[in-house]
């Protein structure tokens, strides 16, 4: 219980620090949003009036306190540009990001798990080398270049899949998935490499352990040794990396969203930063930080579930 509480306070601290930092940093942005909103040639009085209305002339920390108070009540403010509530904007962009994330991580896992296990089991074999070389290639390719390559091949040349654009789910699941296939693949083809490599190296280390030798002495079939005995203790780094990747995908798939014109959270944020739409930036950062923190918490719980030694804390009697 104490473990969980200390974790939660730590995570709350992180969320507070990140949002406050965002406030302070965005406040120092050089351009003036008030001038933008008031329009060109607005008088000083009009500018002041806009600032007053938006609360921009109050000290940063005071504005932060107000904002946090609002967040606690469930109010995230309204966009300065579109006047749309921030929560609505986030809600409309979130499903795209989530679907992209789920699909790409699914592809990455489908590639990384079998490849990692097989190349650890047969490490040094030609199969391992081929997998390794392929992985090297994938890891060295920027995902935007990969995305362009995929578009060039599947959309422009073969004309199998749409090059860009987002089809909402209610327009048919087939069309929707078709639109997500290339973006998810461009993310997965880069991300699976890290997953595969940590799994492979941890598995190789585990396979050298005495308890694997004992499992072999017990006459267990190979699949059982690999999947039941070796995989679970080798998953710690794998889970960590998976968590970090997932967390970074929530806000970080901007480039892929841009290439494929997908209206996700990342694009929303970048647009907001260019427009200096503070409430949207704040809302987006809050969402991303909270998801990062939650995923980290889940990863910690996974550690405890995977390894009983973490659960009980004491290592030796």
């Amino acid at each position, binding site marked *: 219980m104490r473990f969980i509480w200390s974790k939660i306070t730590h995570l709350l601290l992180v969320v507070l620090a990140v949002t406050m930092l965002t406030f302070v940093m965005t406040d120092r942005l050089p351009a003036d949003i008030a001038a933008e909103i008031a329009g060109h040639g607005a008088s000083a009085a009009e500018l002041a009036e806009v600032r007053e209305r938006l609360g921009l002339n109050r000290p940063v920390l005071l504005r932060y306190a107000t904002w946090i108070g609002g967040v606690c009540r469930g109010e995230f403010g309204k966009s300065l540009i579109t006047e749309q509530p921030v929560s609505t904007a986030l809600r409309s962009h979130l499903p795209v990001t989530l679907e992209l994330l789920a699909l790409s991580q699914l592809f990455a896992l489908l590639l990384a798990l079998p490849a990692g296990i097989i190349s650890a089991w047969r490490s040094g074999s030609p199969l391992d080398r081929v997998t390794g070389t392929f992985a090297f290639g994938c890891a060295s390719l920027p995902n935007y270049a990969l995305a362009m390559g995929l578009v060039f091949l599947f959309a422009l040349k073969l004309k199998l899949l749409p090059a860009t654009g987002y089809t909402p789910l209610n327009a048919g699941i087939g069309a929707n998935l078709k639109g997500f296939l290339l973006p998810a693949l461009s993310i997965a083809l880069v991300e699976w490499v890290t997953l595969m490599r940590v799994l492979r190296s941890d598995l190789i280390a585990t396979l050298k352990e005495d308890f694997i030798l004992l499992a072999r002495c017990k006459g267990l079939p190979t699949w059982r040794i690999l999947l039941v005995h070796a995989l679970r203790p080798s998953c710690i780094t794998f889970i960590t990396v998976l968590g970090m990747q997932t967390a970074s995908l929530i806000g970080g798939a901007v480039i892929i969203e841009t290439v494929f014109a997908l209206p996700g959270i990342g694009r929303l944020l970048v647009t907001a930063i260019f427009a200096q739409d503070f409430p949207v930036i704040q809302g987006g950062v809050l969402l991303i930080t909270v998801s990062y923190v939650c995923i*980290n918490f889940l990863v910690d719980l996974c550690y405890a579930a995977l390894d009983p030694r973490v659960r009980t804390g004491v290592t030796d009697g």
Partner: protein
Amino acid sequence: MGKSKANPPKSPFQKGGLQLAPPFTKGGLGGISFYAAITWLILVLFCAASVGLWPFPFTVDQIDAEHFAALPGGAHLLGTDATGRDIVARLLFGARVSLTVGICAPLFGLGVGLLLGMPSGLYRGWTERTIMTLADVILAFPGLVFLLVFTSVLGPSLTTITLGLGLLISPRFVRVARANTIRFSEREFIQAARIGGAGDISIMLREILPNILGPLMAYTLVVAGFVIVAEGGLGFLGLSVPSPTPSWGGMIAAGRDVLEQTPPVAMIPTAVMFLTVLSINVIGDRLRGRYDRA
């Protein structure tokens, strides 16, 4: 925490036949690929460093109005981009950006990582908690937002981008340095050093640093590849160094508009970046292999 007994000696049963070969490189991507990687990197470094010194028919922003998005060959060795600028010139000057970022940002991260990671791994307790919370704050910060705001506040330039990326990746170095320090800080030779009168600083510098420097250098190379790609990503979004300074990412992005008509405009910078990152990864893996075995 219940202090566990020192590990009993490993069973000699372990030594022997079933030794599993460590990383990919041993054999597979053997000597040739390693030396090829080194050669390529030296070539790129040399070009980037000396590009201003020898005469070159085109400058980076010189527009050839007769050739828009020309294919390789003719006056322009590798063709021109959509606005008629020579690709070779832009590649060479773009290498400066990519390599500066790719070398300086990881080294900055490495420095921060050692400076904060070693103490947090050695002292544990509140020192560790403070440093790790700090690292978590940066890790939790959406990277792109951080970079965007950072560069717009300080003005977009090569320095700010390098510094921004360096700051962004330093928590990862802190984590790796800390994890490696912890791995060694419980070993008996650290206690032996204390008994021998070594202070904390001397333990960090003489006992821990030589042991963790290897794995950290390997990690630095991994990050260098990542940073070059990330800088390219910024360039792709038009957020890297301001034009007309070329960057590889920006060139790839520019090639997107003429992808259907003239694929080489995008493919050539992609290939150059790919080869560079691949070389770094090959060397990094070789390095990692050495330290994994030790």
